[in-house]
């Protein structure tokens, strides 16, 4: 890598970190200067102390939430991508299935959560169900758009080589759809975190959502904010992982490789 490329990579990581550090410092100063009470807005030091003290239970609850996030997300991908393919290839299926997909999006998850708990109990299942419902729509729609939006000329070209339907799907539609699929995955992974928390809010005695609810209820500022910060960090890390996989899988796409012109800017 050239020096300027290395420098840019380092800057890309350091700048957000520097920004966060600045926010933390300002926050700490504000807490001290304005003597903000702990239950309203704890100082960063208090939160850090609390994380250090309760780290074992925090890790456990984080693991619980992470499990429903990942399982619900995985379910959406495993069911959603093939479904999108079916919708694109078959008009009748599109007419039957699309309304169902749209409904999965418009049904208010907060309202349906109690029903899911009655059906599925208090364990992990209803959370996975909600996470699935919230991630299903973005994944199906973005995949379908990607699969559908192949230039007709490109399909003609490959057909003229003797390709049948299967080859057209595997060699043309799927690779073409990958950038769209990843866009859907990035949106979905962030929504998945929201979905898991909604499920935990409604009925749970595990997870970061449960911690948030109980600690807020008992005005335990440091614990509330600790759970919140871990939650936000979880979303950011998961998003970054998807982005990283995207860079590996579709390095050729303009959204991943960036503008060539930008490399000449300082």
């Amino acid at each position, binding site marked *: 890598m050239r020096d300027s490329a290395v420098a840019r990579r380092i800057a890309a990581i350091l700048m957000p970190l520097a920004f966060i550090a600045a926010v933390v410092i300002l926050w700490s100063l504000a807490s001290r200067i304005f003597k903000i009470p702990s239950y309203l807005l704890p100082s960063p030091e208090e939160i850090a102390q609390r994380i250090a003290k309760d780290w074992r239970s925090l890790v456990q609850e984080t693991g619980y939430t992470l499990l429903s996030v990942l399982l619900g997300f995985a379910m959406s991908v495993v069911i959603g991508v093939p479904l999108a393919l079916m919708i694109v290839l078959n008009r009748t299926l599109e007419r039957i299935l699309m309304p169902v997909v749209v409904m999965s999006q418009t049904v208010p998850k907060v309202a349906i959560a109690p029903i899911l708990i009655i059906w599925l109990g208090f364990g992990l299942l209803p959370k996975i169900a909600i996470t699935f419902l919230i991630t299903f729509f973005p994944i199906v729609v973005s995949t379908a758009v990607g699969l559908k939006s192949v230039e007709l000329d490109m399909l003609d070209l490959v057909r003229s*080589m003797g390709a049948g339907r299967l080859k057209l799907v595997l060699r043309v539609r799927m690779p073409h759809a990958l950038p769209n699929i990843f866009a859907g995955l990035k949106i979905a992974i962030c929504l998945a975190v929201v979905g898991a928390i909604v499920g935990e809010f409604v009925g749970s005695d595990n997870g970061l959502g449960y911690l948030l609810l109980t600690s807020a209820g008992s005005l335990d500022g440091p614990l509330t904010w600790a759970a919140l910060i871990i939650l936000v960090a979880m979303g950011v890390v998961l998003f970054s992982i998807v982005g990283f996989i995207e860079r590996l899988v579709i390095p050729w796409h303009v959204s991943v490789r960036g503008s060539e012109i930008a490399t000449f800017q300082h």
Partner: protein
Amino acid sequence: MIVPHAADGVGTISVADVSLVYPSRRATVQALQGISLKAGQGEFVSVVGPSGCGKSTLLKIIAGLLMPTTGSVMVDGAPVRGPGGNVGIVFQSPLLMAWRTVLQNVLLQVEIRGLRVSDYRERALQLLDLVGLKGFEHSYPHELSGGMQQRVGLCRALIHDPPLLMMDEPFGALDAMTREQMNVELQRVWLQSRKTVLFITHSISEAIFLGDRVVVMSPRPGRLLADIAVDFERPRALDGLIGTSRFAELSRQIRGHLNAASAVE
């Protein structure tokens, strides 16, 4: 569809009274009307016509991508029933797969046809070298200019050594200089293998420079207006041709047919 080995067939085309009518929103559209056309082995046939006259439709019918409403099409004496025949096609835009390298794009042709890729790798590299793309085998399409991408498309159409090559305004999107270069390139490549070529263009001078014959099509519904022989010797040089009176004569003939047909509109 299993494609016979490239050595089979000689690339002759026989189009008999082909018409294409298709329904559109308002009424039915007649794209082609009673087209009859023959191309013999090793002939370079240029097809000239205004935009929308159905030239691309005719190519797609010969390729088996579209079925004519009436008439028959035969390639190498066998009726065309669907796509996948022993032909190489170059479209108007390069249509390269952005997720494949140049080399992988060229080899797509043999992959789809179910041939063994390793057998054709060497030939792909040779073809890329022949069109001046040595060193770009592992580049991605976005790193290439339009003209370079179109040359990759040409290699892709030639990799399986088809006896018939069809090109639909392949140089239309290029600037005039590159276009002239590509015409010379194409002649050079063609002279090495003498395939049967059906070359669609709306440039009269390009049609005359490249073709053994120039077939003139009318505006929609596309009919054949004329089939003019071009008897310049090969290899042809741009300079030696364009200025000559014979060239001007041919251009006038062709333009005359086109103007007469559009005047009727």
